């Protein structure tokens, strides 16, 4: 589904993260923010999805979408690790989140480009 606005972008990223977070955690979108809760309690939220509608960077959607995705993934990852005191995803260290837009599709993952630990479902930016 093509993404046209920051609330759509937040909703799509929240859905993809919610598919992969550990049990007990919930990722949801609310008013354009991506919000993480644990056992029903608020952990943190980020409105970085707004960057896809950055009025000063309309012609830079691919870069803005990738930056927003990296920030959202990083925040959710840190919040989970702060709660569980264990690295996530993976077991040894915190793999860096990354994202890239190619042919209007946003790819998101944790880990090095050639050693991805966890890959999220791609997002069609339309």
């Amino acid at each position, binding site marked *: 589904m093509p993404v046209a606005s920051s609330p759509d972008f937040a909703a799509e990223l929240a859905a993809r993260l919610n598919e992969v977070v550990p049990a007990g955690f919930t990722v949801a979108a609310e008013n354009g923010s991506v919000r993480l809760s644990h056992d029903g309690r608020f952990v943190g*939220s980020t409105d970085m999805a707004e960057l896809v509608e950055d009025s*000063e*960077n309309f012609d830079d959607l691919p870069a803005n979408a990738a930056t927003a995705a990296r920030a959202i993934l990083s925040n959710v990852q840190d*919040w989970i690790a702060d709660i569980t005191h264990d690295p996530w995803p993976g077991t040894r260290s915190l793999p860096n989140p990354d994202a890239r837009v190619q042919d209007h599709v946003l790819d998101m993952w944790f880990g090095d480009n050639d050693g991805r630990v966890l890959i999220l479902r791609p997002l069609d930016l339309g």
Partner: protein
Amino acid sequence: MTRMLRRAVMFVSAVTVALGGMMFTAGTANAIGVHTCGPNMQWPGNAGVVRADLLPSGFLVWDVRDYTDDHGMWVADVFVGKRRVDHKEQAYNPHGRINPVDLRKGYLVHFVIQHTDIEGRMSFSDPNASCIVP
């Protein structure tokens, strides 16, 4: 009210960043005390101490610690130039990392952090919590 205050703080910060960027462009960065990003940077302020470290990998990691109590609500924004590259709201002192891809050479990295403690007292990070991407 909180949202209005936050927007006011962000506006002031944006102006600071814009002026900082202009001054840097004009070659007067030292006059406003903005240094090149590097290891072990610290900016003490009302909301605690903002710390940042430019790692050899190119990632910029940062955190903030209150002097007395890290509880309450924290709102943190990180800008590179006028572009916001991180934002978070959470109930304990925040930390984060900025990907090298988002650290554009020559741009000002600026941290804007607000803390509301459990008594409702609001405090802010040092408005000069900035460095220039080498």
